[in-house]
């Protein structure tokens, strides 16, 4: 009996040590401050407590689809030309349906050849419809391909945002898919106050692209449209020039560019800022990936003496004449501001956002407001726990000590678990811990009331304790399992904070089973061993 008791005591002691380690880790010293530091390293405080920025962004995945079909338009044109098949145009008929590409103006005689050419190259990614009788075929991106592309776009956006946020040097940033809606990203940056800086960094779509110039510069959009014959054809687009930083000259110039980029954002391997040694102008030196380099060489060698435009952030930065074929590196001399040049190289290194982003939610909590919340939460917790413990002592006398020890251990295990699991403690989380104490005491009350009943029925202390635990155990199992069942469902159905709530709740209940039943029973057994025969237990 006694040996058994010692073993159990050792087990409890080990559990206590493990979870105390969970809360504090190994503090660097024994002063109050170093212990607090160690604790804050183990238990992560939520944004509402430590201050920070919380954003939910939506990725406009349709843009990535549109870019992909833009490329397809270019490839189809190329393929049909190579095969000497005539057509009037390849275009995207409906801007609201970026997944559809239409080939028009095929002579009926060629219809079957065109069909087999398209089938050969595009049937993996596209559903091809039309008979060619009316001279047209329609390519629609397959839903599976489209959703895979959309998923990839979101992942890419997450990667890019992560890389960019890393340059801020924020500790423990959260950048992840937000489970509630499609294509949504959650960004949490603890300790950051300056929302504007974060937003401009994340949202910078500074995609660097090189497009072929069809015409321009024109004075305004109307003039550009007139020169294009009334309206801009679907495979071209109007882009404004950016103001020359030095002279401000061509700020409102409008260019007509081929919609499909010769070099797109993902083709750049690197870009470095520099200065032109002759003119002192700011320059950007870029290198392309091998594949893009071959493509670029191909294009530039065929189009010597035409113009191409460097576009960044939706504005033409520079228009250059192709003097000779270029392969994989070059220099852009344009109207860049100093900030643009500096951030451009950083952004190119971290990769371009595959699509633009939209803000669905933003929250910032100032650090001092967070500190207030901590103070209030902790005050409420301390008062709550003391009131419960005090009451148990008064109501159950000697056994109250038993319950209070169990409660204390319950609290240690719960906090230690938060330290181990890396769960985040938020203000509602503190409230949850307080409630766990209030409800955790329920198991003790159930057992003690049962023991009192047995004592009243005239049982000896040992028997009363045994029966009391036995009867209460059935009830405790039922109440705990029911709550765990509902927590498990919350975990499956819920997301984010609801999931966290479910995990903490479940663990709190398991810890409660251990402390209120196992530990409390052990304390009673130990007490029984020291009781003189005939002496009643204090309950």
């Amino acid at each position, binding site marked *: 009996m006694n040996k058994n008791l010692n073993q159990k005591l050792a087990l409890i002691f080990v559990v206590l040590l493990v979870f105390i380690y969970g809360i504090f880790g190994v503090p660097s010293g024994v002063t109050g401050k170093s212990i607090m530091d160690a604790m804050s390293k183990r238990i992560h405080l939520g944004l509402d407590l430590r*201050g920070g920025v919380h954003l939910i962004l*939506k990725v406009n995945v349709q843009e990535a689809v549109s870019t992909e079909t833009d490329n397809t338009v270019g490839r189809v044109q190329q393929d049909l030309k190579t095969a000497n098949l005539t057509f009037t145009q390849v275009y995207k008929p409906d801007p609201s349906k970026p997944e559809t590409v239409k080939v028009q103006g095929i002579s009926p005689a060629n219809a079957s050849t065109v069909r087999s050419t398209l089938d050969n190259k595009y049937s993996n990614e596209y559903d091809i419809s039309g008979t060619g009788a009316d001279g047209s075929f329609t390519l629609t991106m397959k839903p599976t391909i489209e959703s895979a592309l959309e998923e990839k776009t979101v992942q890419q956006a997450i990667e890019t945002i992560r890389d960019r946020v890393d340059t801020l040097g924020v500790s423990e940033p959260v950048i992840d898919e937000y489970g*509630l809606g499609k294509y949504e990203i959650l960004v949490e940056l603890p300790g950051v*106050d300056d*929302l504007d800086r974060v937003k401009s960094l994340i949202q910078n779509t500074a995609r660097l692209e090189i497009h072929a110039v069809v015409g321009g510069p024109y004075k305004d959009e109307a003039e550009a449209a007139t020169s294009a014959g009334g309206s801009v054809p679907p495979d071209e687009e109007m882009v404004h020039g950016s103001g020359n930083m030095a002279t401000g000259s061509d700020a409102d110039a409008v260019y007509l560019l081929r919609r499909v980029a010769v070099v797109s954002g993902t083709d750049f391997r690197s870009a470095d800022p520099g200065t032109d040694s002759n003119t002192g102008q700011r320059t950007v030196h870029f290198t392309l990936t091998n594949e893009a380099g071959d493509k670029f060489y191909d294009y530039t060698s065929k189009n010597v003496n035409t113009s191409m435009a460097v576009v960044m952030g939706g504005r033409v930065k520079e228009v250059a004449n192709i003097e000779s074929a270029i392969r994989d590196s070059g220099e852009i001399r344009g109207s860049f501001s100093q900030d643009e040049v500096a951030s451009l190289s950083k952004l190119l290194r971290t990769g371009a956002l595959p699509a633009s982003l*939209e*803000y*669905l939610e*933003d*929250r*910032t909590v*100032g650090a*001092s*407001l967070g500190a*207030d*919340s901590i103070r*209030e*939460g902790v*005050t*409420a917790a301390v008062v*709550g*726990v003391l*009131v*419960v413990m005090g*009451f*148990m002592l*008064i*109501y159950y006398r000697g056994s109250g000590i038993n319950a209070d020890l169990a409660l204390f251990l319950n609290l240690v295990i719960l906090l230690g678990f938060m330290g181990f699991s890396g769960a985040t403690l938020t*203000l*509602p989380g503190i*409230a*949850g811990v*307080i*409630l766990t*104490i*209030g*409800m955790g*005491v*329920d198991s003790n*009350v*159930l057992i003690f*009331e049962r023991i*009192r009943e047995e004592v009243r029925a005239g049982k000896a202390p040992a028997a009363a304790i045994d029966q009391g635990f036995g009867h209460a155990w*059935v*009830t405790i*199992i*039922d*109440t705990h*399992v*029911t*709550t765990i*069942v*509902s*927590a498990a*469902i*919350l975990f499956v*159905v*819920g997301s984010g*904070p*609801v999931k966290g709530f479910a995990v903490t709740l479940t663990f709190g209940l398991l810890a409660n089973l251990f402390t209120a039943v196992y530990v409390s029973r052990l304390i009673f057994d130990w007490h029984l061993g020291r009781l003189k025969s005939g002496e009643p237990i204090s309950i």
Partner: protein
Amino acid sequence: MELFRGVNIDWLRLKWAFLGFSLLFSVAGVIKMAVLFSTTGSPVPLGVDFRGGTEVKVQFQQAPDINAIRQAMDAAGIRDAKIQSYNSTAGANQVLISLPEEQNESQIDSGRQQVVSALHSHYTNPFTDSGVQVDAVGPTVGKQLETQAGRAILVSLLGMLVYLWFRFQLIYGVAAVVAVFHDTLITVGFFALTGQEISLTVIAAILTLVGYSMNDTIVVFDRIRENLRLSRRESLPDVVNRSINQTLSRTVLTSGLTFLTVLSLYIFGGQVLRGFSFALVVGILIGTYSSIAVAAPMLVAWQQWRASKGKDVVLPAAKRPRA
């Protein structure tokens, strides 16, 4: 110290009073929700988490003057801003400025910028970036959260019903779930009646309440099951009464202690937790009441209804408890 020793109250005699009480509060809540729904399109006042919109909380360095702030907002052309002083125990000098919901997401950040710049340019009381809290929520996210929260509560109720069906009998599960639903309805009704906003933390409180009330009910049911097995000749109403009385001391103690901790939250936890603790203050009282006054009488009512139909009269003692 001991309360409720040897109490012998005939709870079931009070069942009509209980029914009236429950109906009064549920119906009042439901009517208020219906009125709100027809006027505002939402049965309960929703917090910024669900409704969408912008809330800016600013901690000023000196005591703020609400009227001066209102003038600052007007001067900057911000209309319909709701301004309330937001003093909590720890953080004095706080003001909450809320702007009405935005209809689309592209405007989401403009509210914050407008408010902060209006305060900087038209109001002299200084504040720092670390004393500003902003919640700007677009309508999409709010809607998604609302759907999810509702579904989570309903599905978890269903899960508990299945577990109780398996451990006791279907009627026990139904009675418990009805009782818990009753608690949730009345608590949400209280929010509608008092005009308090339901936020994400209030949903967390309601989830907690569901678990808590279920606990209370199961403790009583467990006693009923045990007593039914021990004394098969006693009538069901007697067993139910005796079981409630036997567990009364535990019920009152646990509720009382949990109530005290929640009260401490309500008093010391600050403004942010006010909604959370309000939900629990109401919920714990109702939850305790419902396990005595709703769940247990439902078992008896069901048995009497079966008897009147000439069906199997005895409520079986359920399965033997295994543990």
